[in-house]
């Protein structure tokens, strides 16, 4: 285990660890990292504002992503429009329980969880709540890790579209929700990338 001296943060000691390569060094105004040359900051610049901006973008995209069909299936002249939740219900009704659960978690639960957790943590930074910071940090690391898994449904649409092109017999085309959903996932990832967990601990 690494020992820590007098519970001092890098910021309090006038130090900064590079956001790109992690190198610890003395920090000054308008400085570049001695190791990788990236701009050096003690905290990610405009972290809270950027995080909110991307999160709100994602929330806006979440609406069309769920209301519009994610793919259109044409089979023998009959076209079916499937929304995300419609797809989950369909999978459940044909007893594909594991796949229904995977899609439900990846496409519906994970995005909602990300909205909830990131806005909760941003709120916590704003209010300077320094309670259960360990759990708050761990919560962030968890949603940061599971966030990209929401892309599963987009990949499934891409694959089905590429696979099912049998002219008159069966054709699958991407719906307008597919891009909205992909944009939503990318926006939540950017929101998480902009978030700086150190800001949570600064109020301690």
């Amino acid at each position, binding site marked *: 285990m690494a020992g820590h001296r007098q519970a*001092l943060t890098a910021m309090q000691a*006038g130090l900064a660890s590079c956001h790109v390569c992690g190198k610890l060094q003395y920090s000054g105004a308008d400085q570049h990292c001695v190791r990788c040359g990236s701009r050096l900051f003690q905290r990610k610049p405009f972290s809270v504002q950027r995080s909110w901006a991307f999160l709100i973008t994602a929330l806006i995209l979440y609406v069309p992503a769920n209301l519009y069909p994610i793919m259109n299936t044409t089979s023998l002249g009959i076209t079916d429009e499937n929304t995300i939740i419609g797809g989950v219900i369909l999978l459940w009704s044909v007893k594909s329980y594991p796949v229904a659960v995977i899609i439900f978690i990846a496409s519906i639960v994970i995005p909602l969880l990300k909205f909830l957790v990131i806005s909760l943590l941003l709120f916590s930074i704003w209010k300077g709540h320094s309670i259960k910071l360990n759990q708050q*940090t761990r919560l962030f690391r968890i949603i940061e890790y599971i966030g990209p898994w929401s*892309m599963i449904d987009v*990949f499934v649409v891409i694959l089905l579209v590429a696979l099912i092109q049998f002219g008159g017999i069966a054709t699958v085309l991407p719906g307008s929700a*597919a891009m909205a959903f992909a944009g939503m996932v990318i926006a939540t990832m950017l929101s998480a990338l902009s978030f700086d967990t150190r800001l949570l*601990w600064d109020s301690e």
Partner: protein
Amino acid sequence: MLQQNLPVDDMIACHSCDLLHQRTALVEGEKAWCSRCGSLLYRTSNNTIEMALALTIASLLLFLFAQLLPFLSINVEGNKTTIYLVSTIDTLSQLDNLLLGIAGALFLVVIPLGVLLLDLLLLGALYSNTRPLTQFARQLLLLIGRLAPWNMLEIFLLGVLVTIVKLASIAEISLHQGFWAFVALVMINLFVSTTLEPEELWQAIDKH
């Protein structure tokens, strides 16, 4: 509270909560955790540059196999088609959905292949130890770090599995060499990313 005489090179600040720690030597397989927030500070890498280079070359070959060998065949009421991974991009580009085509090309080909090629260049340069390319190596490692969060091969693999299960009810699916090469590629990728520390590469470049 400015302290001008801290041994910064022997110290590390927690990337989650910014608390300063003294670096101590770790035994193989050990990890150092933040004493305040419990995040991982650093760990020993059980993967050498030589090993990582070998795995990168293997990954590049598997990537080529996965793209160019038959991936799977689908049989709908006697209509049998064999799909190549590389042709999915082609199919997407023929639809009038440019954005989805671009997203597919980025996540399936450009980003994973880009990361592998950058890895190959960087590790090859560090391994061969011939030219003074410190600045070039830094740029490579910076770019690798930028692309890393967007490399979603393992998520795509789960997407493939979900697609297969979805299709299994309406069509006959058979998996081919390309699919298995892809599975092996994802396994190696996961192994490399959990064992090779970027910090170790930064230090290797510094020593170069």
